[in-house]
């Protein structure tokens, strides 16, 4: 038994790629994906968006936050402030 409606399958993509679905749901989902070119494309694109969203900030944000930390620690060490 697979999902019949593409709209239902597409609505479950995030839960599937996040591993938040039951075995039965995954079977019904992947059964539909195997047969439906459009849902398969959409699923692959979602996976790539998830993968790249996780890379967005790692390489373009300087890890140096000494300035911020120094300010806060100064406040903490001068507790009367």
């Amino acid at each position, binding site marked *: 038994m697979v999902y*019949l*409606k*593409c*709209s*239902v399958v*597409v*609505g479950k*993509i*995030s*839960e599937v790629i*996040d591993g*938040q679905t039951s075995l039965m749901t995954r079977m019904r989902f992947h059964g539909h994906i195997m047969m439906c*070119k*459009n*849902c398969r*494309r*959409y699923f*692959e*694109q*979602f996976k*790539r*968006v*998830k993968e*790249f*969203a*996780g*890379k*967005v*900030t*790692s390489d*373009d*944000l300087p*890890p140096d*936050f000494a*300035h*911020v*930390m120094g*300010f*806060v*620690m100064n*406040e*903490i*060490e001068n*507790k009367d402030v």
Partner: protein
Amino acid sequence: MQGDEVHHSPETAQLDALKAGHTSAWKEIMVLHGSGLLSFAIRMLGDRGAAEEIVQDSLVNIYHTIGRFDGRCSIKSWLYRAVHNSAIDEIRRRKRYVDVGIDAEENYFNEAGRWINDCPGWDGLAAKRLDDKRLLTLVREQMDHLPHTHREVLLLKEFEGLDTTEICDALEISPGNLRIRIHRARAALRAAVVGA
């Protein structure tokens, strides 16, 4: 005593040290979470200077109000909640807040739940344009244009690596609401990349 076990958990011991004002405990918190909080604020605001100010003010405020923290959520969630709320205040102050439930998928299907048009592929000519480097650039650009409700869940989940409970506690939303927001955020990001 059995009931005392909870007081010996690392999180509780850390909280006790923070409440006692131990400088080493505060340093540890900042080393652990400072960079993540700052990168989250920068991506939320699109402005490093304002983000630094918000993180500074939030951490100092947390230091002064730690006595009120009841431990119902993790310290990490509480820190992110404070920075998130300050960032949203700043965005609202600038009148740039966009809180809309954009559902990029709502027009894709007919009444029978089938695709109206074919899902555009990322193959053929598009593949040449959408190599990994180009796709990363596009995702980066388009993420900055997402509504804040979408951007914040993607940042917390995909980049900061918070789990479901931590994100729900930080944003004060239910797990069901989070699932919907994450799905809509990815759909909106995908649609933005396709349309770029």
